[in-house]
C-alpha cells in the first residue's frame, strides 16, 4: 500500500500559523497571490507577490523549484 502522498491529487493544505512558521523554518517560500496594491498595503513577512492573474511560467521562474512553496490569499476564497 502506498503512502497518502502517493495518491494525493490536490496540493497540501495547512490551517495554522504554527504550521506556517514550521514550514518557513524548513525553507519554504511564501507567495502572496493577491493583487499588487493589497500586497503593498500589507502582507505576511518575507512573502513575495505573484498575483494569481499573473501566475505563469515566467513569473513562477523567480521561485526555487527545489524548495516548498507556501501560497496564501486573504481568506477561504
Amino acid at each position, binding site marked *: 500500500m502506498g503512502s497518502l502522498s502517493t495518491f494525493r491529487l490536490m496540493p497540501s*493544505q495547512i490551517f495554522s500559523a504554527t504550521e506556517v512558521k514550521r514550514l518557513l523554518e524548513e525553507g519554504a517560500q511564501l507567495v502572496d497571490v493577491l493583487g499588487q496594491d493589497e500586497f503593498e498595503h*500589507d502582507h505576511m513577512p518575507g512573502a513575495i507577490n505573484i498575483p494569481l492573474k499573473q*501566475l505563469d511560467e515566467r513569473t513562477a521562474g523567480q521561485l526555487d523549484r527545489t524548495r516548498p512553496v507556501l501560497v496564501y*490569499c486573504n481568506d477561504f476564497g
Partner: protein
Amino acid sequence: MSPRAASRLETLGFKRVIDYVPGKQAWYEENEPREGKAVDEIWIGDVADAEVPTCGLTERIGAVRARVHAADSETCVVVSSERVVLGLLRKSELDGDPQATAEAVMRPGPKTFRPSVTLQELLKSMRDNNIQTNSLVTTLEGRLVGVISRADAEATLAHEQSGEGSP
C-alpha cells in the same frame, strides 16, 4: 484564490506546494507580524497590555483581588489553561465575597476585539458604545493578547496624530 494558485503551481512543475487555507487575515488575527504600508498603522495587537492580571475559574476572589490590586489594576480576565478568555471580573465582582470562585461571579463571554483591528476602529467602537473600561484583545482562537483601556487608546492615538509617534 490560493487553492487555484497552488494547483497552477503544480501544473507548472512544482513538486511541493502548500496552501495556507485561512490566509493572511487569520495570520494577523493570531497577532503575527506584518510587512508593508500597514506597519505604519497602529493595530491594537501592537499596543495591548499583555500584563493584565488573569486567573483561573476555580480561584477564590479574595486571592484574585490581592493580585489585581498588587498589579494596580481594576480588572482580571478569567482564562483557561490555554489562556482562552472565559470571563471578566470587574471591580464590583472583585469587591464581593472573597470565598466565591471566579467562575461563580465572573461576567461570561465578554466582548473581544481582534489584534488586527486598528486603534482608530477600536476607539470609534468605544466612543459609539460609550465604553470607558478595558477592551479585551484576543486571537482568532480566543486566546488573550492583552487589554486596552479607553484612556490609553485615546492617549496613544492623540500622541500618534500629533506626529510624536514612532516612525
